[in-house]
């Protein structure tokens, strides 16, 4: 199979990449009607599969699970997830032929064999849906002509998909119809109803394309979302310990620090996150992030280029074919980092202290968010999409680190995200080696000595202006308006 994106002429590539429209809530007036009474069969019951299924059922839809035979026979976690939650579980043969909609929520790397196995069992005119366009875009999977192919991609880890629904809300969601597979023209209606069923319509839905989703999703997750947080965790921890800061304190400052500082993003973007710092600290964080952006920009460009031209997916699939040698090696390496092995100390750290003593972390988040956003938009991805894939999702991933450090993060993100994260981390650690040599505890661990806390007015105005005029702030202001209320975590 060929990379679908690469088979398209440039004109069409650009058109598809730029496809993204924020939908009006009136477009969801029909609710779940288009799916009422239809049989929805989910394949896989992992992070997305279970949580989406719970939401869809609670919205009055008919949901059951088709698992591979081994999962059922061995009563694996996926089988337990589905049965303990009272779902009907069956084999492909049992359930797929009856399905009106098949939701493929298996790991992306498995999609080709999975789709090949279920497609022949699907009834004429049914719908196949994805939550990520990897299989279609990167692998060029060809789907039977009579089948409708859609995507409903929550811009959140599965646990959030459920948690927000239960609160009466939802998570921002991207929907798309694969134009080559929309024989009855019902793809959009189905995708909209599906988004309503998961609660996504309450938080904002982007109408996009498979291509724009894949190229932006991969970029966000491997750079700022997971890669930057992982690299930052390791570097900041090692630096603090090297400088004599108590390891338990350092571990706690980082494990919960990402969550705390990025929480500020949800309310008022990068500007608000930096506004939480004292004026001297803000200028310091700004300067550090400018430095970081210069050093890391080539890496962000490389990631985006490799994603756009298909190198990333090819390399990942090659590694998979090679028994995940790199992936497993990196996973083991991460488990052995000192940060991962040092439990958070039993010390009280106030919310403000996370900012004051984590200036470098703030700088890293700012640099990562802005770089990812700039790189994506430069590649033709629309600002709305770039915002969700960078700034918006950062606090959600940070939450997973707060729960159980890097292990938890890598366990809840998708397999493509995990691979991309290690790839980034592997390159970024050495890249920041020289930069880290000059770092001292004033920016990570102890905070600035505010004895001589003079601030140059002109410089402060300049910094504030620069923060506020970054394009991610403009689009962020608009999109955050759609998410009226936000939860408080720490």
């Amino acid at each position: 199979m060929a990379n679908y994106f690469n088979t398209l002429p440039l004109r069409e590539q650009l058109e598809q990449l730029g496809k993204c429209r924020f939908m009006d809530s009136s477009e969801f007036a029909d609710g779940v009607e288009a799916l009422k009474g239809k049989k929805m069969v989910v394949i896989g019951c992992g992070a997305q599969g279970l949580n989406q299924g719970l939401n869809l059922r609670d919205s009055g839809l008919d949901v059951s699970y088709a698992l591979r035979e081994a999962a059922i026979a061995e009563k694996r976690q996926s089988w337990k997830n589905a049965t303990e939650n009272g779902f009907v579980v069956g084999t492909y043969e049992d359930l797929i032929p009856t399905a009106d909609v098949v939701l493929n929520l298996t790991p992306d790397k498995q999609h080709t064999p999975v789709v090949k196995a279920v497609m022949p069992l699907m009834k004429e005119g049914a719908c196949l849906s994805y939550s990520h366009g990897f299989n279609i875009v990167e692998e060029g999977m060809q789907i039977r002509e009579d089948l409708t192919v859609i995507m409903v991609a929550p811009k959140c880890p599965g646990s959030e998909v459920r948690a927000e629904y239960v609160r009466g809300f939802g998570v921002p969601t991207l929907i798309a119809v694969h134009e080559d597979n929309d024989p009855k023209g019902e793809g959009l209606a189905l995708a909209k109803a599906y988004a309503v069923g998961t609660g996504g319509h309450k938080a904002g839905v982007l109408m996009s394309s498979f291509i724009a989703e894949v190229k932006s999703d991969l970029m966000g997750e491997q750079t700022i979302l997971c890669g930057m947080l992982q690299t930052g965790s390791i570097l900041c921890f090692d630096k603090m310990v090297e400088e004599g800061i108590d390891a338990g304190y350092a571990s706690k400052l980082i494990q919960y620090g990402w969550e705390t500082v990025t929480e500020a993003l949800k309310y008022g973007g990068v500007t608000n996150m930096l506004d939480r710092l004292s004026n001297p600290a803000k200028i310091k964080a700004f300067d550090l992030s400018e430095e970081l952006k210069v050093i890391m920009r080539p890496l962000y460009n490389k990631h985006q280029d490799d994603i756009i031209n298909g190198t990333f997916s090819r390399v990942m699939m090659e590694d998979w074919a090679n028994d995940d040698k790199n992936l497993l090696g990196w996973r083991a390496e991460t488990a052995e980092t000192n940060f991962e092995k040092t439990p958070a100390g039993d010390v009280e750290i106030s919310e403000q202290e996370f900012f004051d003593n984590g200036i470098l972390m703030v700088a890293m988040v700012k640099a990562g968010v802005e770089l990812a956003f700039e790189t994506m938009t430069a590649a033709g991805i629309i600002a709305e999409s770039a915002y969700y894939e960078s700034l918006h999702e950062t606090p959600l991933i940070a939450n997973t680190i707060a729960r159980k450090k890097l292990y938890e993060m890598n366990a809840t993100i998708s397999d493509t995200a995990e691979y991309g994260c290690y790839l980034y981390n592997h390159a970024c650690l050495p890249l920041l080696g020289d930069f880290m040599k000059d770092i001292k505890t004033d920016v990570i661990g102890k905070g600035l000595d505010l004895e001589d806390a003079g601030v140059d007015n002109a410089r402060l105005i300049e910094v504030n202006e620069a923060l506020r005029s970054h394009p991610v702030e403009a689009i962020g202001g608009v999109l955050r308006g759609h998410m009226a209320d936000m939860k408080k975590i720490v």
Partner: protein
Amino acid sequence: MDTQNSLDGIRLENLTVNFDEKFTLCNIDWTIEPSQHWVITGTNGSGKSALAAILAGVGEITSGKIEGVPNNIGLVSFEAQAELIANELKKDDADIMDVISLGTPVHEMIFTDCLEPELATELVEKFGLTSLMDRAFRKLSTGETRKVMLIRALSNKPDLLLLDEPFDGLDADTLAMLQAHLASIIETTPMIMVLNRFDEMPDFITHIAYMDKQGDSAGQLKYTVNRQDDVAYNELYQLLHLKTTDLDVPEMDESEKPPALDPSQPLVKLTDINIKYSDTVIVDKLNWTIEPGKHWQLSGPNGCGKTGILSLITGDHPQCYVNDIFVFGFQRGNGESIWQIKQYIGYVSTSLQWEYRVSTSCRNVIISGFFDSIGMYSRPSDKQKKIADEWLALLGMTDRADQPFNKLSYGDQRLLLIARAMVKHPPLLILDEPCLGLDDMNRQLVLALIEKICAGSETTVLYVNHHAEDKIKGIENYLAMTKNNE
């Protein structure tokens, strides 16, 4: 009674006092230090006046002890006033034959044995009694006799002033004058006042004693609160507010009403319910029907599946799709959404409070009850805001409408969540251990609110706690669960 100078303060230790065998104050422990000024407050019939009267020597001590009560007490109360007037009338009877007695004139009442005649003269003028000096005491109006009593008490160099509702019936000017006078003598004269209304409390009061009823004929000193303790003070304020004000549950938003229920059908019918996790069966074949208007109490030990049963009803338990559950006209698992179910339910639990970690305002927390959401994701109507404000007033929390919910005390949060649950007047209100984790005063607050709801609305209450003996007035049906394996 051991009487002496109050230099060491007054001590009541485990004191039980009978009043004419009609009323008892039980097990009072109370210490009044010399520099303190107290207000005694509480619900009607809780023995506020009786507590003050003990210090004036009224009642029969059956156990415990009382020490340090000074000799010279200035007492003003309705009882003392009535007694004084009764004495006057008796004098009348005692007078011989046909001589018509005019009774004791006011100036005699005030100036005989008066220790501070100058002060008395000044007060007579300030209270506007000058023209009444020659009038017979018993000819005075109630308000006027009260003023005479106040003057007598104040101008007698009292070691302790006992003032039972001293402000009752005074016009605004006199009230201000009296308050100012009291404020001017706080350095020399300890005071204990009985007040029904918190807002009448003078600024110089340092401590508050809160009395509560124990059955119909007994009262106890429930809490003593230092006024400096803002948290306790606020809670006390709310408690008194809820207990003593005649409150109506705010109306509902008629325009947002869910489809009406068939009154002949049960609200909930659970048939042969099973709940199990992995291989552990938590609930086995439970049957339970909740008819409209029949309040229930559900009790049982931790882990017996109480919360599980409730979440089957609310739709929060995934196994509600594999059980025979009929709720609010829906047989579960037939295409209804959980939001269609939730619109008929108000729900409060510790875990809800735990999950309610949104930094939204108190008003919004109440309004979110209209949407069954945690946090606010829709714009509320003016009507909804108005109803929320009425609830805040009912809770005595009007001044906190715009404060962030997560900055409130645990108890206040609980009260707000009950209001949130009730705001839409749900057919079913589920209170899952609503007092869990609350201190005694907050328990009182919550229970007072629940009683109000049981009494005054069309809502059927389902009250859950693990102590079967913690009963609420108005609930007549009990379901006691046991652990499945016991």
